[in-house]
Structure formats: C-alpha cells, structure tokens
C-alpha cells in the first residue's frame, strides 16, 4: 500500500537533486519518442546530446546559446522568487533588441569605443521600460501580470516586424525584412578567432555574480525572498510591496534586454524578424530547472542550450524538424514539475502483510 503524507519542510538535498532526475527522465522519454518514430534511439540521442559538443566549435555554440538563456533566467529568478509571474521575457528581449538596435543603427557608419556600451545600455533600458508596463499595471491597476506580459510579447514582435520591413529596413537591402549591418564598433568582441562566442558571456557571468550578491547579501534580496514565501509576512514586516514589484520587473526586463542586445550585437549583427528563437520562453524552463539559484541557472542554461543545439544537429543528420528541441524542453519542465511532488509530499510504501498481521 502507498501512503502519501505532506512534508513539513522541503529537504534541501532533494530540492537540488530532482532536476537531475528530470533530465534523466527527459532523455529516456526522448529515446522512447525516437523509437516510436522509427529511429535507433541510442544513435538519435547521440546525435542530440553528444555530437553537437564533441568539438571546439560545438562548445562555443553551446556557450553562445546558453548566454541569453542564462541572462534572462537570472532576471526571471528575481520575479519568480517574489511571486511575480513575468512570462513576457521574450517581449522584453525583443524590445531591448529594438532600442539597442536603434542606437546601433544611428551609428551605422561610425566607429568609436563608446558605441558598444551605449548600445548595450540602450538595450537594457529598453527591456526595463517594457517590463515596467506589466509591473505598473499590476501595482496601480491590479491587473494580472501573467496575461499583460504575455500579450506584450506579441506587441513587441509585431513592432519589430514593422520596423524591419518599414522605416528601419536597409535602403540597399532589396526589400529584405532586415536593417543595415551594424558597424564593427557596435559588435560584441569575439573571444576566439573563428568561433562565434563573444564577450556577451561576461555580461551573463556578471549577472550571475550580481544576482547572487543581491539575493543573498542585501536587504532587497531578503525582502524578495520573504515576499515570495509569504506575502502576509512581507506586509507585516512593512516592506514596500509596490516598489519591490517595480524593482524585480525592472531587473528582469533589463536582463532580458541585455540578452536581446547580446544577440543582435553578437551573432546577428543587424535587426531582422527572428531576433530570438523563443529564448524568452525557454528561459522560464531554465529558471525552474536551475531552482532560481544563480549557479543552478548556469548549469540549467547549458542543459537547455544543448537541446537547441541537438535539435539543429538532428535536423542535419536525421532530417527531423528542428522544432523537436521543444519536445525535449517541454519534457524537462514536465518532469521537473512532476518530481517537485516528491519535495512537498512523502511517498511511503507500507508493508501490507505486517499491517494485516497486526489487525
């Protein structure tokens, strides 16, 4: 017989261990799906998870994709920890890319050391402003931030679409939906010759360090964590709830904006329709998988980046659509959420025979 009891407190070891269970179950699940579709599961999984990172170029690509995921997820961890459901990071990323890209386009024919910092700053501010919309509506009009931030994703994507086909499109671009190329001064410096990994990774690492400091060493971090655990306690303690909501959304938006600007000044080098392959949504998975912990998020961003990379490799070798990466991303979150059940409930397997004997 199985008996389920509610735990009084969550065991920390299990809390950081269940993500690994989720990853293993996802790989098994992926193998089963490949088998059903008529592929050799071992071979398919090898193409997915090993081939992409078996050379230097692959590793660089992994870090390249992990960078925006890590940045966004770090920002989201502030929101999620304080019970603010910002799920519009994709929109904040896009708007950050629009503002940063706009500044880069202003300087398209100029060079100068000051340009890149300006572009990056503009991107962060853009993301921040865009995240303030759901935050202000939540604090002053009591609207649901989940729905508002989600709706704004599509608004920002349509705005980008309008800009790249309309006013910002490259005058010499034969009507392609893209802007001019940015000047070299607006581009992230590459770390290694011939690889695409760029200096944006330092932004992500700085964000990790800074968020660790803020969350665990400052009064603000303490307020955020307390509000996440119990809103009543936070009110009783006299925390300024409204200010905190605005602050966490601004942090989150700035991080997403940075991720957006990192993409356009890094691998892309201009604005076009596809600034992000839904990094903003996938980063939600990263934040959960990393347990909203700065260092956990680094690990999680690498795992999730591998699903993007694996999907691209599998597309080449197995001729399957690259959307399959999303099957793995979805499964990771499913299994992770499911295994959270073990955190809050104790599953006891009782020995039936003994009980019967006693009766």
């Amino acid at each position, binding site marked *: 017989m199985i008996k389920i009891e509610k735990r009084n407190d969550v065991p920390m070891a299990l809390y950081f261990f269940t993500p690994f269970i989720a990853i293993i179950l996802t790989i098994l699940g992926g193998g089963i799906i490949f088998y059903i579709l008529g592929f050799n599961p071992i071979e398919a999984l090898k193409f997915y998870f090993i081939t992409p990172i078996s050379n230097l170029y692959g590793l660089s690509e992994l870090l390249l994709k992990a960078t925006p995921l890590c940045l966004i997820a770090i920002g989201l961890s502030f929101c999620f920890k304080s019970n603010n*459901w910002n799920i519009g990071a994709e929109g904040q990323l896009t708007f950050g890319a629009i503002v940063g890209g706009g500044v880069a386009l202003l300087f398209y024919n100029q060079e100068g050391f000051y340009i890149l910092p300006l572009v990056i700053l503009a991107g962060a501010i853009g993301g921040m402003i865009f995240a303030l919309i759901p935050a202000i509506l939540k604090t002053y009009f*009591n609207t649901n931030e989940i729905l508002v931030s*989600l709706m704004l994703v599509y608004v920002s994507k349509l705005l980008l679409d*309008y800009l790249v086909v309309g006013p910002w499109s490259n005058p010499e671009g034969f009507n392609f939906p893209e802007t001019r190329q940015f000047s070299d001064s607006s581009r992230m410096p590459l770390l290694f010759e011939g690889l695409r990994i760029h200096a944006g990774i330092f932004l992500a690492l700085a964000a990790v360090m800074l968020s660790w400091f803020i969350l665990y060493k400052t009064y603000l971090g303490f307020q955020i964590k307390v509000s996440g655990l119990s809103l009543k306690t936070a009110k009783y303690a006299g925390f300024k709830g409204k200010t905190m909501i605005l602050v966490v959304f601004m942090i989150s938006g700035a991080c997403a904006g940075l991720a957006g600007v990192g993409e356009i000044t890094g691998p892309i080098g201009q604005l076009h329709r596809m600034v992000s392959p839904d990094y903003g949504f*996938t980063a939600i*998975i990263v934040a959960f998988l990393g347990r909203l912990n700065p260092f956990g998020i680094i690990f999680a961003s690498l795992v999730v980046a591998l699903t993007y990379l694996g999907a691209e490799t599998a597309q080449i070798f197995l001729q399957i659509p690259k959307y399959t990466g999303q099957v793995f991303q*979805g499964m990771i979150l499913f299994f992770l*959420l499911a295994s959270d059940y073990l955190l809050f409930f104790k599953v006891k397997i009782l020995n039936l025979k003994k009980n019967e004997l006693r009766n």
Partner: protein
Amino acid sequence: MSLEISFIGILIGSIMASSVPLILAASGELITERSGVLNLGVEGMMIIGAISGFALMVITDNLFIAIVGSMLSGVIISLIFGFLTQSLLTNHVATGLALTIFGIGLSAMLGKNFVGIPGKEFPILFSSLRESIPFFGPILFGHSIILYFAFTLPFLTNYFLKKTKLGLVVRAVGDSPVSASNQGINVILVRYCCILYGGAMCGLAGAYLSLIYTPQWIENMTAGRGWIALALVVFATWSPIKVLIGALIFGGITILQLHMQAIGFRIPVQFLSALPYLMTIIVLVVISRDSRKIKLNTPTSLGRIFYKEK
C-alpha cells in the same frame, strides 16, 4: 451597388470562417478557466489537434474519424496538464507553458511525413443557397458543419454555465473551491473534466485549421491563434457570448489585414495584428481597476492550486 453588397456578404462570411478556431478554443478555455484552472497550453493543444486531424484524414481518408481523433488527441494532451496540475499540484502557468512548447515540438515531429500532402475538400452545407441568395447567402450558407457548431457553442456554453446544475458546480469550483469541497463536490474531478473538455475544443479548433480553413499541414500552422484565443477569454471577461463577439472582432481584424495588404492601405498591418493584444490589455485594466468588477467577472481562484488534506 449590388456588387458591393454581395462583396460585403462574402467578406462577413470570411470573417466568420476566420473566427471559428478562436471561438472553439476560447469557449473550451473559458470552461477550463471558469473552474479555476489557467491553462496556457491552448496553442500546444491546438497544434496537436491540427496535426492529428490532418494525419488521420490522410491515413484513414475519413473526415469523421479525423475530426473525432483530433478532439481525442486534444483530450490526451490536456490529460498531461490535468495530471500534473491536479494530481501532482504543479504550477498552472509553468505547466501550461511546457504544454505549448512540447505540443509545438511534438506536432512538428509527428507531422514530418505529412508536409506537402494536399488536403481533402471538406463538405460544405447548403452550397446552392449560398449562390442564389444575395448578401445573406455567403453569410448564412455554404459553410462546414464545424462553423455552425462553433457559432452555437457560445450559446450552449452560456446556457450550461447559467442554467444547469453542472454549470453551477463548475462556477462554484472556480470561485470558491474550498466551500465547494465542503459541500461535497469533488473539486479535482470537476477540474479534470473541465481541462479535458478544453483540450477537446482546442483539438477541434486545430483540426478546423488543418482540415477546413487551410487544408494542409504546415509546421507551427496555428501561428499564435492559441494565444489570441487565450487573450479572447480575458477580453470577453469570461462570458461566452462576449467570446463570440470578440472572436468576430479579432477574426475581422485578421481578414481586414489581408484586404488592406491587397489594396496597399497605409496603416501598417502589424498595428492591426497587435490590436487584439492591446485591446485585451485595455479590457484587463478596465475590469481589474475596480475590485468589485474583477470579482464579478474573474473566476476567483483562477490559477491557484487546490489541495485537500486527506
């Protein structure tokens, strides 16, 4: 003059056709949300419905099986969401997002061999009346049976929620799960049923796209309609009749875009496309500002986890 009138008739008919997937998905999601469950997986369930409907049509050559199968596939995929959120008490938002991401990926995987296969013509009803009656002909006749079903669904949903005992149960579970539970209602079971119903309707909405509206399979062919349907439920302030009106407005915007593109109108199409989302935000602000209004309109326990100590 008569040419213009008949053109307007055809235009209205096409607006109705484009609003069908929105009505179906939003009506399903409305019931789910009325029971207190926020399922952000609409897009994922729709796309699964679209590929299963199309695949079954190609394999069995039977449209009835395809339609029923698409609804079943919606039920099956929403069962994942139901099991996680209701039995394992997971967060609704995260689970719903996972469902959408998973659904888009899985549909592309399943649909790999169905890309480029032409669809089959879906039977339309009263096609002779469509031609013979000016103006009203293209509006009222010559549609698929799914369209007629979609346009009666909001009224049925309204009747169900307001006039039947089961509808009252659903509303009670959504507004106050604790007192409903104390009355002896099995909250989890009711929510399961509402989630599965939502899944079936989203599956049907997807099949409408791949079997009737644009009869073929294209990766990611729902193209954000699931999110619009989700917005629509909020836009309609959780009222079925307003879902119908909202779907016609949102569907109208889509059709208007196509025509404006065709005649080279000045307003950028992207602004029109953004309108449904902006209108939804405005409606949210208007209803949320007043705490009385939001209580009247929103299912009180929307998105909250319900757990009963055994």
